[in-house]
């Protein structure tokens, strides 16, 4: 039965895929390293050590590096590195096929080599293939590693005898026995792997893992690129999820804003009749004010612009007031030349603020036009009342 999502989350991240190869298949040596200052010639200490490791392997191995699976273990500040190599043909194709996608492939002793131990300690790592003795002197990187193959049918006494023989190779102050297979898990620091060995733990950082891995270095570089690409994809996922969270927050604000807006709309609706009444009152006040203080004088305005004053042959066909001080007149004349003179005469009247003649058209010798006159406020006076 499939685990529930909650159980999957509780279980934590899946452990790293670590392939620990039998120590007996590897040629193991400790080589001195000389470091040329920090970062000189554009190379880090790790890169300098890696170069020296490859030189040492090329010098000591009967096979070219291309035919070897090799790696090394070194910690910053240490004066020697542990190198190991194995002829590629020692591994079957089926075995190497299973390595695809693994996070780390290295000899089994690497898990123990990263342990933090006291000076002159020897660790005895028992596996199905044999016993590996790892000896530290004063440095953090083991000085010497010896593997002794053990047949499957040997007794415990015989095993103890082998261990004793192995320990005779070192001057040990402390002996650590590791009987269980190491368990790998991701460290709390990104890219580091923790190994559990009986009661103790060891940790290898991301740089150490890259150089400890025995796979083809080109293949490892491609793997690093793929991991970098995966990290970019993961960052994309994180950003997308962040956007979802942000949008959810914005939705909450929008919902809150909707409630606030509804409250304001209710207030608007409640106030609407009150405001309408005030506006109505304002309009009434304006109308009453207009009726009491301003008078429309249409006859006086018509008489002021009458063309009959100078005997023009211009006739008004319609007149409409436009506000209190405006007149729009539709006029016609059989003599179009009079229109300009008439316009000039109107412009000469002091009460006329503006005179505009437009829509001039001529048909059957009759010219029609629209005259728009605006009078200066209060310039037109009412006629004397008729007795």
């Amino acid at each position, binding site marked *: 039965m499939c685990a529930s999502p909650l159980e*999957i989350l509780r279980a934590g991240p899946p452990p790293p895929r670590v392939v620990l190869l039998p120590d007996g298949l590897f040629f193991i040596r400790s080589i001195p390293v000389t470091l040329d200052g920090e970062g000189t010639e554009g190379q880090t200490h790790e890169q300098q050590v890696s170069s020296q490791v490859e030189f040492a392997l090329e010098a000591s191995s009967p096979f070219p590096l291309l035919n070897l699976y090799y790696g090394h273990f070194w910690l910053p500040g240490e004066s020697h590195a542990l190198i190991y190599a194995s002829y590629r043909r020692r591994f079957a194709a089926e075995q190497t096929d299973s390595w695809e996608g693994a996070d780390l492939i290295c000899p089994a002793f690497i898990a123990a080599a990263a342990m933090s131990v006291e000076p002159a300690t020897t660790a005895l790592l028992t596996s199905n293939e044999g016993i590996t003795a790892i000896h530290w002197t004063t440095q953090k990187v083991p000085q010497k590693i010896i593997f002794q193959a053990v047949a499957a049918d040997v007794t415990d006494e015989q095993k103890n005898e082998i261990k004793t023989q192995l320990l005779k190779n070192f001057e040990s102050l402390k002996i650590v026995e590791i009987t269980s297979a190491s368990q790998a898990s991701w460290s709390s620091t990104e890219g580091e792997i923790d190994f559990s060995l009986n009661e103790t733990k060891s940790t290898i950082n991301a740089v150490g893992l890259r150089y400890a891995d025995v796979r083809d270095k080109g293949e490892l570089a491609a793997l690093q690129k793929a991991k970098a690409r995966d990290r970019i*994809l*993961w960052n994309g996922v994180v950003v997308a999820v962040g956007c979802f969270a942000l949008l959810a927050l914005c939705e909450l604000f929008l919902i809150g804003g909707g409630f606030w807006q509804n409250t304001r709309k209710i207030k608007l609706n409640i106030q609407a009749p009150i405001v309408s009444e*005030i506006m109505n009152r304002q309009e009434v006040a304006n109308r*009453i004010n207009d*009726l*009491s203080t301003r008078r429309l004088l249409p006859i006086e305005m018509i008489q002021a612009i009458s063309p009959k004053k100078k005997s023009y042959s211009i006739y*008004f066909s*319609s007149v409409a007031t436009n506000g209190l001080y405006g007149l729009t007149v539709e006029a016609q004349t059989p003599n179009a030349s009079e229109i300009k003179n008439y316009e000039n005469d109107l412009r000469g009247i002091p009460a006329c603020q503006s005179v505009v003649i437009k829509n001039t058209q001529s048909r059957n010798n009759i010219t029609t036009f629209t005259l728009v006159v605006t009078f200066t406020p209060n310039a037109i006076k009412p006629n004397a009342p008729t007795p």
Partner: protein
Amino acid sequence: MIRTLKGLFLTRALREKLLLLVLLLIGVAYWFSSFLGRATIFMTEQSHTTKSLANQARWIASRSAVQKQAEKAAAAFKSDETLDGTRLIAALQNIAASSGLNNPSINGLQDLSVEQFAVHPVQFTVTKVSFESLVTFVNAVQQRNPYIGIEQFQVMADKANPAVLNASMKISSVEITKGIP
């Protein structure tokens, strides 16, 4: 939990990682687009409501000033001499008859009233009248100012007989139903 999710994600095949990311990005784009539309509508409504409320606040703040303005305008009127709609029509009929305008058409328009104040507009129309009788009528109406006032005036020559005129006016009266307090 984040480490677990990251671990689970990183152990997936590349196509699964890409598919998940693409689906998430499509989801974000779709949601963002939808949200943007709704947010724009909300902002527009909010802005409109803010303006309307500010406008209402201005009107409410000017309430007493408007009341004073109306009372000041009405102070020029004696309430006994103001005319309601019916009295306005009757008055106009009398003035028209005395001015020689026969059969005027007088139609009441929408009244405007607030509490004790009212404005009664009518549309006054006469056809086939002389300019002189029209002048007499307008002068007579103006005599009744400010109780009766002409607000709009339009006159045109009759198409059949250009010697006579057709006229239409909007005439209003003020009514004060109660005394000014």
